[in-house]
């Protein structure tokens, strides 16, 4: 028969390791979504800045004269 206390130790080790990996997965979820949201916000801000600078009188694109 295999050791009972050995199985208790193994159980605690398995649980601790599973908890670490599971919470790491939860962190990954948070990081991915924070990253994607940040990218979305940045690209939105960039597009807004572009639109704003284009609408200012001095920054209007030059038109070719015929």
């Amino acid at each position, binding site marked *: 028969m295999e050791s009972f206390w*050995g199985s208790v130790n193994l159980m605690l080790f398995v649980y601790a390791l*599973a908890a670490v990996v599971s919470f790491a997965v939860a962190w990954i979820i948070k990081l991915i*979504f924070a990253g994607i949201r940040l990218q979305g916000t940045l690209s939105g801000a960039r597009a807004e800045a572009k639109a704003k600078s284009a609408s200012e009188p001095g920054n209007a694109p030059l038109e070719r004269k015929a």
Partner: protein
Amino acid sequence: MPQIEILQIFQGLATLVASDPLIIFARIALIALGIAFVYLGAKGTLEPLIMIPMGVGMSSVNAAVLFLSPTVMGTLFIDPMASDPAKLMDVLQIDFLQPIYTFTFSNGLIACLVFMGIGVITDVGYMLISPFRSMFIALAAELGTLLTFPIAVAMGLTYKEAASIAMVGGADGPMVLFTSLMLAKDIFVPITIVAYLYLSLTYAGYPYLIRLLIPKHLRGVKMDLKAVPATTKAEKMTFSVIVCTLLCLLFPVAAPLFMSFFLGIIIRESGVTQFIDFIGGPVLYGSTFFLGLMLGVLCEAGTILNPKVLMLLVLGMTALLLSGIGGIIGGYIVYWTSGRSYNPVIGIAGVSCVPTTAKVAQKEARDANKFAVILPWAMGANICGVITSAIIAAIYVTLLR
């Protein structure tokens, strides 16, 4: 005209008469149990998708024993013990279900196909509502998986057998099948049968556990639906690809399961309807059908008569009960730490029987308060439960194989 013995014409009866009393009793009991499974499955008390094919298989295989030679009894269904290549080649050409057993069941393919189907019907977007809380609840709901392991060892099982039966606490059929195939091939048949039998009872049993442990006013706690974030397909696919790769890197031994599950999710989010329809329909239901049928025909009296079966029945029940209690304790902890704004019934959904336990949680909450909607959080905990169960299975298989 040769001398005819009438009984020898009806070989199912002849083998019954020629068997040991214990085998006679076991065959009759298993035939009756198979018929009961079909009845209870059709009635909806047990899960019909598994129990109907399993019941028919079980009653047929125990009735259809014949003399393969003057001294050897067997069936024309399957020979799970055939491993010698020459014998296996013979059996593959004779036993009509042997190709399915050898090429899909004993290598875990069928478990992976079921897992792929589960992935296709799973929306990981629910995980994103509160990943840490969902993961915490899922870990709490593994209480049965963890405590059953030393209990089983104390009852005399080896570490490998104990880990296999403990996985019933994860309440995930394909996971139990995969783990027991990897760790305890000698008793994987009774373990998987115990697992599927109990899993089909969770829908009937867990509501009583919830009502016993959670008072009605707490079961009706309303959740803030505005907190459910809108997620894009790109976000879900990015998550699935990264987590799948990471888990395969950490636990290569369970990579087939991880890959199948996340592939299902990615196919769902990719929007390729041909694949979604194929995997969510014929693959998932075809695999479930053959899984049930194989489990049934593997329940032949000679195979199933194992002194450990009674022990496995007790341990399987203990694992599921402890996991349910653990999940509810997890739900209570989140309820207290969140300023009493979290419905503790969600805890039961940490037991990863997708989507049964989430549906049970929602039903119990709605019965207590018709305005309580907890399904998105329950599904989040449910999916986290699948991931934690797979992680624990992977750790056990890696350490003990």
